[in-house]
């Protein structure tokens, strides 16, 4: 395998492409775009390299995923975009995608000769910003720069968001409202959401308006500190605030931690979920009574644990969720529609909660703990290693940026740009910055979601009372964001209650971020992604604001958007970039929400857990809505759409459903039948 670092790959300045902030980038851009192309097929690799060179990009090629990762790790900020094949011998392309998203947060384009909807969907859910079908035409490569720009722009947006939350929120709200007006079943939900937005908006503003959060780079050390804090606190208690306190890192905000926590959870989830994917696939839809929460609970527990671990699931939330699970609707137990929109996966855990609360609670508690360790035996060490590893790779440049403090200003943006993995973004950043003056991106790694998103199946726990009333809870301040934990249903089966609580956490703040179907396909296969409730988070402290103002963020994302024609680019439709974008927009806090919003709908979960009255209703609603919506809507970044996630969820739902249809045997599980949980006793 031969790979040659593109010239200037290591340093910004050495590039002959004028990636200098001061220059009118437009002229030369996208020339000099630093691309890393990974493909085990030597013929394809060579052709791609030549094509990319013809596009005036700086190309580095390699034929193994592992090599690609090490190249990326060694050259932090050395690349702008990664193009990777799906089928590779040493590592699955999607896995590579996740890693990159986790560690470097670069836009990743997948390619394959396989154009099956299933695989393409997988790319989407794993956070790929585009999916090219082989044989790849040079025309397709000419446009890849848009993903880079989009991502940067979104990051800026997020940052900007934090700086001008109120405005953004307002705008988002407007667009959101507009969007809602056209969808059915919005009713309560919308109302709730609005209220919630209001609350969040205010809170958020207080929190962040004066805080300019530079993008945080989770270096190895930082991540280790984070993990240590999480472990020390314990899954149940690992909430961002406490983690932050324990870490005691100057300049780090709770939002940063929260967002990182989300990703971490997703990652954990993915690690454990994959292995359990198969086993828990078909947990019978638990009947209200006594269903064996065992299998379901595992999932829930996992989620809960993960959530707890990430500190997003405060005990109280958990308790609340459990209570909800018990069938006692709590004020905040419903999973906000927004969560769903955000494409969170519905965590069927909610349904589970409905059953036997006591038991659940019990289970929750135990399971959470057990699960955490249990699941994952395969998960923890691995993910920790990975995370740490990734942490290392996550450059320190961001830290530099972070250290520059909150000064929102050009400096920050510049710094951030430099600090960010994609330092190349300077040009972009500059331009963006100028648009959004001095708003350092608050997102440390917003796009972790790329890979992380894949991991984080945002589970929007669908609260039991997903029904109308549940939506109301959405509005509650506590917006737990749907933790994008992508726990496969397998897990879910074990955690009946656990997961539910998460989901029921009130106030899942409407994350406007569009959830990503992380692994929708895998979910469909039976791993029910449950939506972890970032709800829990929300619940936790968030009443105020934990601003999962993703919603706001999401909204602002679209609303203010300038223009960029890039946004209008259809590619957005096709890729999860939107999602990324929305994620990015959020500040750390939001980011996690965004990630959360990437929850996956796991119809299976619902079915399994059977708890689903609310869930069902919710799902049904979503489904209905989703059906109405073209699957593309999911990626619709048009301002009108941003609306937060509501739409996304629906779209996601529909996409998910469609996906389900297309997917083999597993689909059955997610059959709509599952949704018609009419018989599920609340």
């Amino acid at each position, binding site marked *: 395998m031969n790979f040659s670092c593109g010239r200037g790959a290591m340093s910004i300045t050495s590039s002959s492409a004028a990636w200098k902030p001061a220059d009118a980038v437009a002229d030369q851009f996208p020339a000099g775009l630093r691309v890393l192309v990974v493909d*085990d*097929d*030597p*013929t*394809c690799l*060579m*052709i791609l390299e*030549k*094509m990319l060179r*013809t596009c005036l990009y700086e190309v580095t090629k390699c034929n193994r995923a592992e090599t690609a990762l090490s190249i990326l790790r060694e050259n932090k900020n050395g690349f702008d975009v990664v193009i990777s*094949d799906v*089928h590779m011998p040493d590592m699955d392309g999607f896995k590579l995608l996740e890693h990159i998203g986790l560690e470097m947060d670069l836009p990743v384009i997948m390619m*394959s*000769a*396989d154009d099956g909807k299933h695989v393409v969907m997988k790319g989407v859910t794993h956070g790929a910003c585009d999916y090219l079908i*082989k*044989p*790849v*035409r*040079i025309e397709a490569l000419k446009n890849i720069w848009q993903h880079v720009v989009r991502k940067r722009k979104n990051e800026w947006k997020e940052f900007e968001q934090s700086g001008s939350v109120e405005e953004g929120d307002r705008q988002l709200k407007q667009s959101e409202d507009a969007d809602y007006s056209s969808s059915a079943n919005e009713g309560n939900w919308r109302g709730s959401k609005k209220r919630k937005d209001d609350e969040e908006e205010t809170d958020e503003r207080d929190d962040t308006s004066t805080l300019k959060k530079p993008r945080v780079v989770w270096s190895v050390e930082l991540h280790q500190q984070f993990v240590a804090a999480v472990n020390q606190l314990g899954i149940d208690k690992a909430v961002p605030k406490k983690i932050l306190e324990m870490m005691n890192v100057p300049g780090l905000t709770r939002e940063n931690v929260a967002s990182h926590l989300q990703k971490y959870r997703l990652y954990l989830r993915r690690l454990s979920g994959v292995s359990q994917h198969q086993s828990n696939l078909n947990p019978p839809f638990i009947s209200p009574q006594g269903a064996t929460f065992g299998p379901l609970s595992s999932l829930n527990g996992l989620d809960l644990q993960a959530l707890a671990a990430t500190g997003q699931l405060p005990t109280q939330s958990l308790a609340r969720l459990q209570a909800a699970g018990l069938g006692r609707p709590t004020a905040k137990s419903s999973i906000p529609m927004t969560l769903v929109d955000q494409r969170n996966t519905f965590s069927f855990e909610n349904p589970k909660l409905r059953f036997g609360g006591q038991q659940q609670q019990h289970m929750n508690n135990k399971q959470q703990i057990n699960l955490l360790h249990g699941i994952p035996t395969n998960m923890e060490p691995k993910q920790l290693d990975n995370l740490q590893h990734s942490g290392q790779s996550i450059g320190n440049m961001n830290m530099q940026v972070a250290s520059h403090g909150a000064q929102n200003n050009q400096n920050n943006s510049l710094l951030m740009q430099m600090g960010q993995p994609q330092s190349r973004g300077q040009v972009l950043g500059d331009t963006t910055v100028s648009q959004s003056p001095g708003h350092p991106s608050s997102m440390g790694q917003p796009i972790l979601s790329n890979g992380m998103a894949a991991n984080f199946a945002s589970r929007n726990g669908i609260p039991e009372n997903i029904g109308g009333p549940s939506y109301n809870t959405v509005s509650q301040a506590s917006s737990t964001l749907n933790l994008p934990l992508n726990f496969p249903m397998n897990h879910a089966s074990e955690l009946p209650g656990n997961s539910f609580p998460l989901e029921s956490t009130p106030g899942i703040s409407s994350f406007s971020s569009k959830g990503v179907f992380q692994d929708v396909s895998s979910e469909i296969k039976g791993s029910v992604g449950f939506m972890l409730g970032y709800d829990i988070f929300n619940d936790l402290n968030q009443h105020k604001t934990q601003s999962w103002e993703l919603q706001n963020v999401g909204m602002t994302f679209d609303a203010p958007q300038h223009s960029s024609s890039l946004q209008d680019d259809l590619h957005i439709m096709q890729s999860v970039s939107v999602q990324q974008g929305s994620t990015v927009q959020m500040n750390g806090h939001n980011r996690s929400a965004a990630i959360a919003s990437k929850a996956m709908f796991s119809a299976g979960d619902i079915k399994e857990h059977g708890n689903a009255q609310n869930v069902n209703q919710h799902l049904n609603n979503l489904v209905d809505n989703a059906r109405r919506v073209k699957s593309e809507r999911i990626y619709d970044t048009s301002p009108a759409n941003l609306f937060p996630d509501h739409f996304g969820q629906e779209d996601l739902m529909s996409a998910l459903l469609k996906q389900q249809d297309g997917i083999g045997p597993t689909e059955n599980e997610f059959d709509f039948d599952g949704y018609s949980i009419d018989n599920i006793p609340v």
Partner: protein
Amino acid sequence: MNRNRLQHQVACMRKSLFDQGYLDEPFIQLEELQDDANPNFVQEIVTLFYTDSARLIQNIEHALNSRPIDFNKLDDYMHQFKGSSSSIGAKKVTNECTVFREYCSAENAEGCIRSFQQVKQEYAILRRKLEVYLQMVGQAAVSQTA
């Protein structure tokens, strides 16, 4: 004259390769990628393709001969082979690969064996034709510079 005739022959052969469905659009992309910086780009790619194909064909043979047949692996190899052949625009070969994969997913050993014969045949034919064609192209290029 020689040059013109050569060029004419090249053009004719090229046309027939496309008309008869041996080559497809991606091959044109390869040709367009060839430039002064890479004057032998097409030849290089095709050579790479031969090498890689030989390896894949061997793997597939081996997999087909083993008992029990590992269809997943077979599909994997064929997926790769299909990927690279489609990248250079080897239309007929790619089509045969698709047929093979269908048998493979149906776990039809017989069908796989039979269709693999077709794959190999198409591959052999294409290779021969391409070698002739590219040789002519090379000669025409040389004659041009002469």
